[in-house]
């Protein structure tokens, strides 16, 4: 998911051409305090004018307790982007209050409550402690993400590139997302010059279970896509497992072997996930 500063017309109008799966139009940290009004109005006009076809569009609003948050919601919610990203959520009471405001705005405009999804950002130690309760609060929360920079600041961490300080938080957030069966996105990698570092971090967070990673520069898209797209070998293995599963299922066999390795339901589930990520239907095998 590519972050685009909400007050930058050139980037906003080109957002979908770089090949990211999703774009995030940012009204929060990427916008100077004295340009919040300008960004909000610009993003509103862009959403009505530009077709971001093939790209999921998320708008990150300011926190509701800032002087800008409520106005962001009032202006953006009626435009119904694919999702709204809520920063620095810390408690279930807070998410309850914010979703109530969103739904009141939707009611006022005669809009349904189930079209626009909500992404919650966890960016403080308190948020990490409460992440499962927050994530399971509403069906319209379909993703959680970790905001590494703010979290590191909140935890008073010394700046480091290895991510050790936020490792526990990453794992806790992944576990909460998996328990709620929703997507989970990793934080940005701020050193846009360090491609190898980005690749290592993307590979690590993929192993942890993250669904994707936020990026801040179009140059980072290719690397993250490469890491998260299954390799030919992984796809071939997954296809073999699923085909064997279909054959064995017909004969009533639940556990079997492929290339000498035991295959049971969880292995099949993982293989199906690989095919899903490669956009391959089981019927195509």
């Amino acid at each position, binding site marked *: 998911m590519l972050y685009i500063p909400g007050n930058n*017309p050139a980037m906003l109008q080109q957002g979908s051409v770089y090949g990211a799966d999703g774009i995030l139009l940012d009204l929060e940290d990427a916008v100077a305090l004295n340009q919040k009004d300008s960004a909000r109005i610009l993003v509103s006009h862009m959403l009505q*004018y530009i077709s971001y076809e093939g790209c999921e569009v998320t708008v990150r609003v300011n926190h509701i307790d800032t002087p800008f948050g409520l106005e962001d919601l009032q202006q953006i919610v009626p435009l119904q982007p694919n999702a709204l990203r809520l920063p620095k959520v810390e408690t279930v009471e807070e998410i309850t209050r914010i979703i109530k405001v969103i739904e009141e705005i939707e009611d006022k405009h005669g809009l349904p409550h189930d079209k626009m999804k909500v992404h919650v950002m966890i960016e403080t130690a308190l948020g990490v402690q409460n992440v499962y309760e927050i994530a399971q609060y509403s069906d319209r929360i379909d993703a959680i993400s970790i905001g590494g920079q703010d979290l590191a600041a909140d935890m008073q961490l010394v700046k480091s590139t290895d991510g050790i300080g936020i490792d526990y938080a990453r794992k806790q957030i992944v576990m909460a997302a998996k328990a709620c069966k929703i997507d989970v996105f990793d934080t940005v990698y701020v050193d846009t010059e360090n491609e190898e570092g980005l690749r290592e971090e993307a590979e690590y967070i993929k192993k942890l279970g993250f669904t994707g990673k936020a990026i801040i520069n179009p140059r980072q898209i290719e690397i993250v896509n490469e890491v998260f797209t299954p390799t030919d070998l992984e796809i071939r293995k997954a296809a073999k497992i699923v085909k064997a599963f279909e054959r064995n299922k017909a004969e009533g066999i639940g556990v079997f072997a492929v290339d000498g390795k035991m295959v049971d339901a969880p292995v099949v589930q993982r293989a199906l996930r690989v095919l899903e990520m490669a956009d391959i239907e089981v019927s195509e095998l």
Partner: protein
Amino acid sequence: MVLKVKAQAGSFESSDILIMVEPVAKGTGRTIELKSIVMQQFGDDVLQQINRDLDHYNIDDIRIIVNDKGALPPTISARLETALKRSAQVQAGTLTK
């Protein structure tokens, strides 16, 4: 919308537009000074759009200085709306008093 102070919005960045608005006495009419890097191709379109937007806000008396760096219509409308709201002091922003 009642304009109260001089205000501006936008920037000189590529694809953006800088719009400065200034309240003038009632009955003065609209004065729009436009500079654009695409004046020959789109200058009339930009002026028409600004006039349409001013009609929408019922603003008849105003002085506007526009410096266009190739902005798309949504950017022109957004920057004008921002400058007008700042001028009318209906929201916070970079007010030029």
